[in-house]
């Protein structure tokens, strides 16, 4: 035996019982004493044991109550372990939970990216909050709006500069496209503008070279964007070069700017000095008289501290001062915030296709609804799963886990699940982003900051969901009485199951609302696309005659008819599917007197063949006729105009006198109402006049023969007559489809989102059904033994869910009906909601629910009862 060291057993006994706080120093004392005694040749080992024994007393012994609190990290490790085991054990539940949440979060990210882009319009301009656009409204005699234009006439700007010192800077520009001949090549150049020298003071675009302040100061100056410079010169180093704009017009390039961001409500590629506009008028006085030429987009920068209301108050005085006494009855000026234009403005002549705040709102709502569905899924499944774990909770409680411990366990599981979902949501969103870009045509910039933002966003949303929906089951479980939990005498009270049922109803109500809305939207869109417009839009070729004029034009047009597939053609200044913005003063003969009608009549200038080419039917009177000379003073109205003027019948209108644009004439015909403009607007009163000037749009009716052959014939003819001008044509039905393109795309996004919603809801139902089935395994077994058929068992197990889905229709349909009615009312021509979308919704919802439920119930029903009865 080793006499030099203390005895082992008493020492380890001491180490075991002693309060860990004291072990070290007391053991030190024991050792020291042992050594001294050993040195003094005393029975040190015995005495040591005696000392240890005497130490075995309260105050030294470690606390008995809860021997030791494990550190938080140990606990967390344990939570994670149990979490992983649980995921592995309930793979399908966990997958459903995570997938549902991930998909909905990914949807939210994508919706967020889309909305963020929509909301970012024009905010990149410096001083965007002080820039305003001036718009001009025209009123009918009854005070209603006949036309609201986003552009003003040339006299406005000089007078505004005099009268409104609050407008620090005012600029105006007009946009157009043309064909340029550069170095023997032809280029179709869109987005050209004549802008005055203040343009860059308001829109402070980034100059690569040149001075923004002087760039447009001198006559003949021109500013290009980077892209345009490269297009024509192959380099951006072009300042000081000469641009051969027309054969006898050379411009000085004074600046190159960066390409304008896509999220601007207008985009310019070539900006020319405004003095060309003034040069068009023979004198400045003439220009200051041209009030009807509303083609100049006009913006001003508000002086700091000035108020818009003050400016608006003085507009009526502005008109009486500069136009005439009664001008305010006919026209008005309005002010729009620059940053409001994209989402809040939908005037008759917008620069481009604007967005709509209503869509922003509806996307936010859909995003939220999808989140709610997945949140409910999450909650329902977690509750369902947790009931399976009542015994586990009971055992934990018996072993001393407190409420916080149980809650901690469940919250940890929630958090892990949510984190997994967040990561996969982010990946899904990243993968889906290119599709969104391709779909909406916007190029979303998704850089590092955006990634962090969206991660933070879904992180916050996801964690909120996790905590919210994880905390309910956690709290429920934590309150289980351990004894009941262990005896599985848990009364999962009826309250609880009502709650679960209510959640399912909410989910399916949302799904049915979304599906119903989708159905109605598609019905309306197909109604619009297929509605009889009053003329034949198929096989109509639209050819633009820009730059092709003179005698060649006539010869070219004649040559078209030589081809057997070209049936007819007509020219006009406007074609169906465009918005009519041109109108003039009108007086008509009513009861023998010349009076002004209460609303304006919009005009279309056409040739003699136009109406016939389109197959527009006359309600009364006749088409224009080349051989009748008086037709140059003849007018053709539409039925809407006849009704508006107040004649009793279309026949009555014929031969009535009418002054249009102060030109006296007579009405020779009335056409049936046709949908010249988009079906979103009502048919407006229209007047057709024979044009004196050349018309630039040719519509050619083709027969349905070999289209490619016909087109190549037309191209060949064009190229032989106008070798310098590129041919530009379209088909009319394409133009009409383009009118509803934005709407159609939104409908498709809507469909996608409703599909996702119903998918997630069904996932949840699937999870819930399989849970119910697993809890009723023995019941099913007993029923089978007693003779129940598979069908009966299926009905038994599915009935409850089907009733819930049925109830959700009762909840969802009125809501969906209300909103779709609201939406349909924005259309002048709308469907009445038929039973078809309702039927469709029922079929889809019930179908999905049935599939979700029966996937598991069939399995359970087929199960051999012996096995299910042996279960447990």
């Amino acid at each position, binding site marked *: 035996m080793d006499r030099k060291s203390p005895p082992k057993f008493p020492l380890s006994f001491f180490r075991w019982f002693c309060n860990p706080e004291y072990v*070290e120093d007391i053991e*030190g*004392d024991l050792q*020291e*004493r042992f050594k001294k005694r050993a040195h003094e040749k005393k029975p040190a080992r015995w005495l040591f044991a005696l000392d240890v024994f005497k*130490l075995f007393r309260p*105050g030294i012994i470690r606390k008995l109550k809860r021997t030791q609190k494990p550190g938080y990290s140990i606990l967390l490790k344990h939570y994670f372990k149990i979490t992983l085991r649980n995921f592995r054990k309930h793979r399908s539940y966990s997958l459903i939970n995570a997938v549902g949440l991930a998909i909905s979060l990914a949807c939210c990210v994508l919706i967020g990216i889309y909305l963020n882009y929509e909301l970012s319009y024009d905010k990149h301009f410096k001083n965007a909050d002080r820039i305003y656009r001036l718009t001009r409204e025209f009123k009918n005699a009854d005070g209603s709006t006949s036309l609201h234009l986003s552009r003003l006439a040339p006299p406005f700007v000089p007078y505004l500069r005099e009268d409104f010192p609050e407008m620090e800077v005012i600029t105006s520009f007009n946009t157009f496209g043309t064909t340029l001949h550069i170095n023997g090549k032809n280029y179709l150049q869109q987005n050209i503008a004549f802008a005055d020298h203040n343009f860059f003071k308001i829109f402070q675009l980034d100059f690569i070279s040149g001075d923004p302040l002087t760039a447009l100061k001198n006559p003949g100056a021109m500013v290009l964007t980077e892209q345009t410079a490269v297009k024509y010169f192959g380099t951006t180093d072009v300042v000081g070069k000469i641009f051969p704009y027309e054969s006898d017009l050379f411009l000085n390039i004074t600046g190159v700017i960066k390409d304008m961001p896509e999220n601007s409500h207008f985009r310019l590629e070539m900006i020319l000095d405004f003095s060309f506009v003034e040069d068009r008028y023979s004198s400045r006085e003439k220009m200051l008289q041209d009030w009807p030429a509303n083609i100049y987009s006009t913006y001003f920068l508000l002086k700091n501290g000035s108020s818009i209301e003050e400016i608006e108050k003085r507009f009526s005085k502005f008109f009486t001062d500069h136009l005439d006494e009664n001008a305010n009855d006919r026209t008005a000026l309005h002010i729009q915030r620059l940053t409001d234009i994209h989402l809040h403005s939908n005037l008759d002549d917008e620069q481009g296709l604007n967005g709509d705040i209503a869509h922003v709102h509806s996307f936010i709502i859909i995003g939220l609804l999808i989140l709610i569905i997945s949140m409910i899924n999450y909650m329902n499944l977690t509750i369902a799963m947790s009931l399976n774990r009542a015994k586990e909770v009971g055992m934990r409680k018996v072993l001393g886990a407190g409420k916080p411990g149980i809650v901690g366990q469940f919250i940890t599981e929630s958090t892990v699940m949510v984190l997994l979902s967040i990561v996969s949501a982010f990946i899904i969103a990243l993968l889906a982003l290119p599709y969104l870009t391709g779909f909406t045509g916007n190029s979303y910039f998704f850089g590092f900051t955006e990634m962090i933002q969206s991660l933070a966003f879904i992180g916050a949303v996801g964690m909120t969901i996790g905590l919210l929906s994880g905390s309910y089951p956690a709290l429920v479980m934590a309150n289980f009485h351990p004894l009941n939990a262990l005896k599985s005498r848990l009364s999962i009270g009826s309250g609880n199951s009502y709650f679960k049922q209510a959640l399912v109803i909410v989910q399916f109500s949302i799904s049915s609302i979304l599906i119903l809305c989708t159905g109605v939207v598609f019905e309306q869109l197909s109604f619009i696309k297929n509605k009889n417009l009053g003329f034949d839009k198929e096989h109509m070729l639209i050819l633009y005659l820009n730059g092709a004029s003179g005698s060649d034009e006539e010869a070219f047009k004649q040559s078209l008819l030589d081809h057997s597939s070209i049936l007819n053609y007509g020219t006009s200044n406007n074609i169906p599917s465009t918005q009519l913005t041109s109108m003039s003063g009108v007086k008509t003969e009513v009861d023998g007197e010349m009076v002004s009608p209460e609303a304006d009549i919009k005009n279309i200038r056409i040739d003699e063949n136009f109406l016939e080419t389109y197959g527009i039917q006359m309600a009364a009177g006749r088409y224009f006729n080349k051989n009748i000379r008086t037709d140059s003073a003849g007018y053709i109205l539409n039925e809407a105009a006849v009704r508006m003027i107040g004649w009793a019948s279309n026949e009555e209108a014929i031969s009535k006198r009418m002054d249009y644009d102060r030109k006296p004439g007579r009405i020779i015909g009335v056409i049936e109402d046709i949908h010249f403009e988009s079906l979103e607007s009502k048919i407006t009163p229209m007047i057709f006049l024979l044009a004196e000037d050349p018309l630039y749009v040719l519509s050619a009716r083709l027969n349905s023969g070999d289209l490619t052959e016909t087109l190549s014939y037309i191209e060949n003819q064009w190229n032989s007559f106008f070798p310098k001008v590129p041919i530009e044509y379209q088909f009319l039905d394409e133009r009409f489809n383009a009118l509803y393109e934005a709407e159609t795309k939104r409908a498709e996004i809507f469909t996608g989102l409703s599909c996702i919603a119903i998918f997630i809801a069904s996932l949840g139902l699937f999870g819930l059904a399989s849970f119910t089935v697993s809890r009723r395994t023995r019941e099913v077994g007993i029923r089978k033994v007693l003779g129940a058929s598979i069908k009966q068992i299926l009905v038994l197990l599915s009935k409850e869910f089907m009733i819930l889905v049925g109830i959700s229709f009762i909840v969802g349909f009125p809501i969906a009906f209300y909103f779709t009615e609201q939406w349909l009312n924005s259309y002048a021509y709308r469907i009445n909601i038929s039973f078809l979308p309702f039927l469709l919704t029922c079929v889809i919802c019930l179908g999905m629910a049935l599939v979700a439920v029966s996937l598991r119930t069939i399995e359970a029903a087929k199960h051999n009862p012996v096995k299910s009865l042996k279960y447990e």
Partner: protein
Amino acid sequence: MGKHHLGEFEEIVMLTVAILQDEAYGFAIIEEMENRLKRSVSIGALQTVLKRLEKKGFLKSELGESTAVRGGKRKRFHHLTSAGKEMLQKTKEQRIGLWDAIPEFILKFNR
């Protein structure tokens, strides 16, 4: 008077701690007491009292540096707190008061 009063053993332990000043750790206290008072003290008794005094707020302790002598175990050094000093002072005065109250002859007689 304070809530607590010192037991005899407690008083001795506190006095010994005071004597040892900065060297008042378990074994040193036992040695000191055994040397001065010639009475054997078990570690258990001492430690219990030390803990109790610490709880009452008369002593405070901290662990020192580890030394090779004690198998690398650190020593726990004890100090009087100001409350402890006050208590000792009071106890001493009480004792002296008691001594002063005893008639002289009794002590003489006993001797």
